[in-house]
């Protein structure tokens, strides 16, 4: 287990040391919510940040497994190609923004715009998510075990969303339904994989989630859907 200490060093130095350690297990101490930690790790390293991280932790990674014991700032795992980024606390705006693949797991809450423009992969929040989660989501899966904020799944392409709690408000062109049997099974399996037994106690079963996808009324310009287009450009 290699150890990296952030105190008194620049982010550039810290990241260079992390990358230099190659694959294997790395603990990073005293991150103190600093920005750009663990950006562009392209090897299969397993990095644990003990404490909070700032913006873009795990951004632009491909293949790394990152864990954050505290909370995360904006743009967690943004544009990740593949890998896992797991936060024990909460995450700020734009968690899992534009991810192409991989998994983003948030055990606390996610702030606004979770999974914005996501292009693949999985974004999972054990707690609640904020305003406009899933905005313009293109592919991949978004799972919120708790409550979802306003404008949920607004203007989406083909991301599939699931919400275990209340949805404050569906976004433009978002349509809610019940998950199919295989989707419910997928939810149960995913929750079992990423959440502890303790966490799962308070979460609904897969079949009790709501499924939300795009109604596809925004997929092609059409004057007849005036009410939809009024809200979206």
């Amino acid at each position, binding site marked *: 287990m290699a150890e990296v200490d952030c105190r008194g060093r620049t*982010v*550039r130095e810290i*990241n260079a040391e992390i990358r230099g350690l190659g694959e294997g297990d790395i603990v990073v101490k005293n991150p103190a919510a600093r*920005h*750009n930690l663990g*950006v*562009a790790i*392209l090897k299969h390293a397993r990095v644990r940040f003990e404490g909070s991280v*700032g*913006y*873009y932790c795990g*951004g*632009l*990674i*491909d293949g790394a497994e990152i864990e954050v014991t505290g909370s995360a700032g*904006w*743009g967690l795992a*943004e*544009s990740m*190609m593949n890998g896992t980024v797991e936060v024990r606390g909460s995450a700020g*705006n*734009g968690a899992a*923004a*534009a991810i*192409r693949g991989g998994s983003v797991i948030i055990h606390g809450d996610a702030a606004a*715009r979770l999974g*914005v*423009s996501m*292009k*693949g992969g999985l974004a999972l929040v054990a707690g609640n998510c904020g305003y406009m989660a899933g*905005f*313009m989501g*293109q*592919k991949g899966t978004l799972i919120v075990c708790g409550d979802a904020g306003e404008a949920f799944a607004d*203007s989406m*392409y*083909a991301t599939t969303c699931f919400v275990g709690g209340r949805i404050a408000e569906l976004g433009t062109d978002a349509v809610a339904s019940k998950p199919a049997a295989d989707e419910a099974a997928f939810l149960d399996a995913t929750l079992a994989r990423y959440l502890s037994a303790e966490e799962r106690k308070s979460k609904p079963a897969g079949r009790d989630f709501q499924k939300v996808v795009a109604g596809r009324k*925004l*997929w*092609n*310009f059409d*004057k*007849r859907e*005036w009410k939809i*287009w009024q809200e*979206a*450009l």
Partner: protein
Amino acid sequence: MSSERVLQSSGTFSPGVIEDIQTKAESGLYRIRGYGTLRERRWATFDDLTFLPCSLTRIPLEGYREKCSTKTVLGTRFAGKPIELGIPVMITGMSWGALSYNAKVALAKGASAVGSSNTTGDGGMLMAERENSRTLIYEVLPSRYGINVHDMRLADAIELTIGQGAKPGTGGLLLGSKVSGTIAEQRDLPIGVDQRSPARHPDFLGPDDMIIKVEEIREATDWKVPIFIKMGASRVFDDVKLAAKAGADVIVVDGMEGGTGASPAILQEHTGIPTLAAVCEARAALEECGLYGVVQLIVAGGIRDGVDAAKAIALGADAVYIGTAALISLNCNKPIYVEDYEKLGTEPHFCHHCHTGRCPVGITTQDPELMERLDIEQGAERVSNLLRAMTREIQMLARACGKSDVHHLEPEDMAALSMEASAICGIPLAGTRKVFGR
């Protein structure tokens, strides 16, 4: 007495406006098309400036014999490895998707042959583009279509795009006929959607966050390559200062006359400020923060020839981007396949129908049959020729003004032909010794 009817249209409700209103009465939607502003240019442009070559007060250089350097270096502020170009004219970002594969490769080859550069666009990197580009700039846009850290690390520079000149403050558009199988796959979209891009970046909102984003990009590219920040020309003076404070190596301002493959017509016509005004505001902004000459400036937006480029350089640009002009060199609006122009309801020299995907010359289409009409090698040569011609034009003007380096052109090498241009550029009005409006 002959009974010839005299027809008079309303200046306000002209035939074009009548057609526009009646079309909207059918569709309930704003008009979408390609190309860029079609309005008659009644604002101050580069045409309102003229060069003052050497006469008695200064000595010109002999054309064709005495050297006039066109070498251009970009990214000296922070980048470990600035870009070195042979000429100050570069190809701007135009997406694979808006453009055909053949067009993208022809542009890459054509630019590379003369020491120029290519830029990816709102759809990610084509491998063929990287393979055929001597210098390739990777665009990071609000949509993040095709975003890939490995592609970023293959690029020679990263361009963080806030917006473009044709439609600042809004997102991109690619209509369904062009979201073909390969494009849809590249962009992670369903086939055939009318793709709308977001107006904002997903992970930063504001110049204060952008400071952190620029650092992230440097981290991802090992602090080697220059970071460009590109903006559509709006509040240029304020925006350029902010981009400089955010740590840009190079700032790109894209003026109102810039082109687009598809966008709402009203945005092309009524948003953004003209390129001439933009370059003057940009230079003033850099001077105010003491970074003129430290941060490089690229100017874009309707650059048509070496003259526009030379004037932009004289006003403070280190280089210019061309987009529409490069496509025109690839046969955009050429009088060939005329019956196909007619099928679109237009004619050569009047076509701005890039958004339809039915480009008669194979540039802005995803239809393989149409694309075949654009031969890559021939296209590349035409692009190279345009770039060579533009470079020679710039050199000619520079030598006439006594410069052995095109980058030595200055505002004082020009006179203004209108009061607006004098006020905007801070250059005396020809025939007076006065700068107006300051």
